[in-house]
C-alpha cells in the first residue's frame, strides 16, 4: 500500500459535526468512535470534549482533567454500563435462607411477587458479611424467565399434577418437606386471595407459628427474636399492628421496592427426599363457566363497550354474547336508553380494570378515558381516525363497527366450530 494518506474532507467534516445524521456512523468507520484528540488539517490538535469524561454517580457527566482517566475508554465503559447496569450476584454459601412462595398468577411473577422478592432481598442482604439466599418455591408450570432479575438465588420448581388448581393440602405437604430439609429462617408469602393468603395461613399453623398478616413495612430491631419488627394491617384495614417479625409473614403489595440493581443466579434446586403424597379431602372439579353478564363490571376481565357509534344494538349484544364478554357502555349510550345505567363506564359510572377493553363506537371523552385508566389492553373500533380513544388504544380499527363485529363473530364461531369438529 502507498504511504500517502488519503483524506476525505467531507467525512472529516461529518466527523466534526455532531449534529450530522451520519456523524456516529462516520466516527465508527474511522475507528475513533470515542477519539477525544486528533491532529487537525492545519496541524493543530483538536479535542472533542463530548467523547471524554464519564457518567458520575448522580447521572451527571464528569470530565477528569488530571489525566488519571483516559477519556475515550471511560466513555465507552459508561455506555456499556448503561446497557447492562445490573450487577451479577452469586451467593455460594448462604448463611440462611429466606423462602418465598410467589403466587405466579398467569404463570408469571406479578407485581406483588416482585415487591415480595424485594422484601426478601432486604431481609437476606441486611448483613453484607453473611448474606442469606432467597429461595423461591414455584408450583406447577410457569412462563417466567426472569427469576434471576427478580432477586431469586435458589429456585425450587415443583412440577407435578398434584399441584394443579386448588390443592392446598398437596402444596402444604411440599412446603412442609421444604421446611424439614432446608429450614429457612423466614417464610414470605403474598397476602393475595389467589396465592398466599390461604396457603400462608395453613403453612404458619402447620409450623406452629403465629404469622403476621397484611405486613406492609419492616424495620430492623435488635430486640426482636429474628432481628426485625414489622407493621401489619389489622381489623379490616383500620389498625396498624407493630410487632416483632415472626417466621412466617404474609405481605401486602408494595411492601418493598422490587429488585432492580442486581441479577441473581436462580440456581435450580431439588429436594433430596420425596415429598409424601397427602391424602386430599378437597377435590377440584375445575372452573365453572360464569355468565359474563352477571360479573360485576368493575372486576370483569373482558369488556365490550358500546357508545354513540353503535347503530346495530342487536348485533352488539350478540357479539358480546359470542365473545363471552361483559357489556359496558359510554354515557351517551346510557342516556339514549340503549343500555342500563349500571353498565356505564367512566368517571360517573364504574371504573373498570379489564384486561381487554373493546370500545365500539366510543370517541373517548376524558371522563370515559378516566374510567378505563387501569385496563391493560384497549381495542377500539371507530369511524373517526382523529378521536381521543385512538390515542389511548393499543389497537384501533377504523371502519364500520357493525361490519367488523359481525366479521369478528363469524371468525370466533368458525374457530369454535372447527374445534368441535376436531374434538
Amino acid at each position, binding site marked *: 500500500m502507498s504511504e500517502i494518506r488519503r483524506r476525505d474532507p467531507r467525512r472529516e467534516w461529518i466527523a466534526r459535526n455532531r449534529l450530522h445524521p451520519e456523524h456516529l456512523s462516520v466516527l465508527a468507520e474511522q475507528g475513533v468512535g470515542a477519539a477525544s484528540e486528533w491532529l487537525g488539517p492545519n496541524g493543530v490538535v483538536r479535542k472533542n470534549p463530548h467523547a471524554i469524561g464519564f457518567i458520575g454517580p448522580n*447521572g451527571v457527566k464528569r470530565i477528569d482533567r488530571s489525566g488519571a482517566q483516559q477519556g475515550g475508554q471511560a466513555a465507552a465503559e*459508561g455506555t456499556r454500563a*448503561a446497557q447492562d447496569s445490573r450487577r451479577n450476584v452469586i451467593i455460594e454459601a448462604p448463611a440462611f435462607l429466606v423462602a418465598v412462595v410467589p403466587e405466579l398468577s398467569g404463570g408469571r411473577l406479578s407485581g406483588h411477587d416482585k415487591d415480595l422478592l424485594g422484601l426478601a432481598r432486604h431481609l437476606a442482604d441486611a448483613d453484607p458479611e453473611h448474606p442469606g439466599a432467597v429461595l423461591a418455591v414455584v408450583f406447577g408450570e410457569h412462563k417466567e424467565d426472569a427469576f434471576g432479575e427478580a432477586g431469586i438465588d435458589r429456585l425450587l420448581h415443583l412440577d407435578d399434577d398434584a399441584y394443579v388448581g386448588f390443592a392446598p393440602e398437596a402444596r402444604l405437604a411440599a412446603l412442609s418437606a421444604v421446611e424439614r430439609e432446608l429450614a429457612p429462617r423466614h417464610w414470605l408469602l403474598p397476602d393475595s*386471595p389467589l396465592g398466599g393468603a*390461604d396457603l400462608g*395461613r395453613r403453612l*404458619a*399453623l*402447620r409450623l406452629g407459628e*403465629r404469622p403476621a*398478616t*397484611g405486613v406492609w413495612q419492616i424495620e430492623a430491631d435488635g430486640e426482636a427474636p429474628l432481628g426485625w419488627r414489622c407493621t401489619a*394491617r*389489622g*381489623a*379490616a384495614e*383500620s*389498625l*396498624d*399492628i*407493630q*410487632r416483632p417479625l415472626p417466621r412466617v409473614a404474609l405481605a401486602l403489595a408494595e411492601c418493598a*421496592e422490587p429488585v432492580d440493581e442486581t441479577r441473581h443466579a436462580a440456581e435450580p434446586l431439588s429436594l433430596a427426599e420425596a415429598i409424601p403424597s397427602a391424602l386430599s379431602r378437597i*377435590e*377440584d*372439579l*375445575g*372452573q*365453572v363457566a*360464569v355468565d359474563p353478564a*352477571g*360479573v360485576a363490571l368493575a372486576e*370483569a*376481565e*373482558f369488556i365490550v363497550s358500546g357508545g354513540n357509534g353503535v347503530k346495530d344494538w342487536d348485533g352488539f349484544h350478540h357479539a358480546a354474547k359470542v*365473545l*363471552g364478554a361483559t357489556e359496558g357502555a359510554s354515557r351517551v349510550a346510557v342516556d339514549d336508553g340503549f343500555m342500563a345505567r349500571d353498565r356505564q363506564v367512566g368517571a360517573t359510572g364504574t371504573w373498570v380494570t379489564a*384486561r*381487554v377493553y373493546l370500545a365500539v363506537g366510543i370517541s373517548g371523552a376524558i371522563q370515559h378515558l378516566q374510567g378505563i385508566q387501569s385496563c*391493560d*389492553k384497549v*381495542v377500539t*373500533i371507530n369511524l373517526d*381516525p382523529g378521536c381521543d380513544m385512538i390515542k*389511548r*388504544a*393499543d*389497537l*384501533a*380499527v377504523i*371502519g*364500520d363497527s357493525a361490519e*367488523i*363485529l*359481525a*366479521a*369478528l363473530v*363469524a*371468525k*370466533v364461531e368458525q374457530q369454535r366450530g372447527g374445534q368441535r369438529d376436531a374434538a
Partner: protein
Amino acid sequence: MRPEQQGVEVAVLVSVGRHPITGRARRADQDARGLELALGLERQLPGSRVRLLHAGPRGEESEAALRGYLGMGLDTLTLLEQAEGSDAIPALAEHLAAAPPQLVITGARAERGEGSGLLPYALAERLGWPLVNGLAAVEKVENGVATVLQALPRGQRRRLEVRLPAIVSVDGAAPEARQSAFGPARRAELEATPVVAEPDQELAQWQLSPARKRPKRLKIVKAASARDRFKAAAAKAEGGSGQVLEGVSAEQGAEAILKLIEAEGVLR
C-alpha cells in the same frame, strides 16, 4: 319418594363487627353473609339445623351487635363468655369438638382486634378438618360430600368437592345478608356459658394504633444522563404506541382484534 338429601348440621361462627365509618359495633358483614349462606342451605336441605356461636365478652354494645344476627331468623345464640382480650380459638375448638357439626361457616376475617383471618385455619388445624376459603355457594350435600363454589378474583368461580365435616370461610362473594328484624332480635335468647380462657399474651404486647395512610409509591427514575432524566420527567403517561389500522376490510380488522384477544387469553 324417598328423600335423597338429608339435612346437615351447620354451625355459624359470628363476631362483633365494626362499622367502617362510625366505628360502632354491628353485625360483621362477612359473618352475616355466612349466616345467610347457612339459612339458604337450611331452605335447600330440609331437616338442616343452624346454630350460632360466638366467643367473647358480654357487654351492652356487643349484645346489640350479636342480636343483629338473631334478627335474621334464629331463636338462640350460644355465647361462650370470656374476658376481654382472651384467645377465642381454644374455647371454640373445644365447643365444636364436644358436639361436632358437619359444616362450620365463618367469615374470612374479623373487623376488630387482630383481624388476621387465622381463626378458620387454626380451627381446621386443631380439629383436623378440611378447609375451603372464599366460598360463594353450596350447591349440594350428598353422602357426606359437599359440592361448593369457590370465588376467584374477577368474578370467576371454581367447583370443589369437600368431604364433611369441614370448615368453610366466606368473604364478599357470598350472597348478601338479609335485613335484620328488630322484634325477633329482641325476643331471641342469648345462651351464655362462661368458659375459662387464657388471655392472649402476645397480642397484649403488640403496639396497636389507628391505621396510618400508606405512603404512595414514587416513580423512581434511574437514568444515566441528563437527557434520559429529562425524557422520563417530560414523558406522557400514555405513549402513542398503539397500532392503527385504517382502510382495511372488516375481515382484516376482525382478524387483528381476534389475534389480540387470543394473545391475552380472555376468550373462552
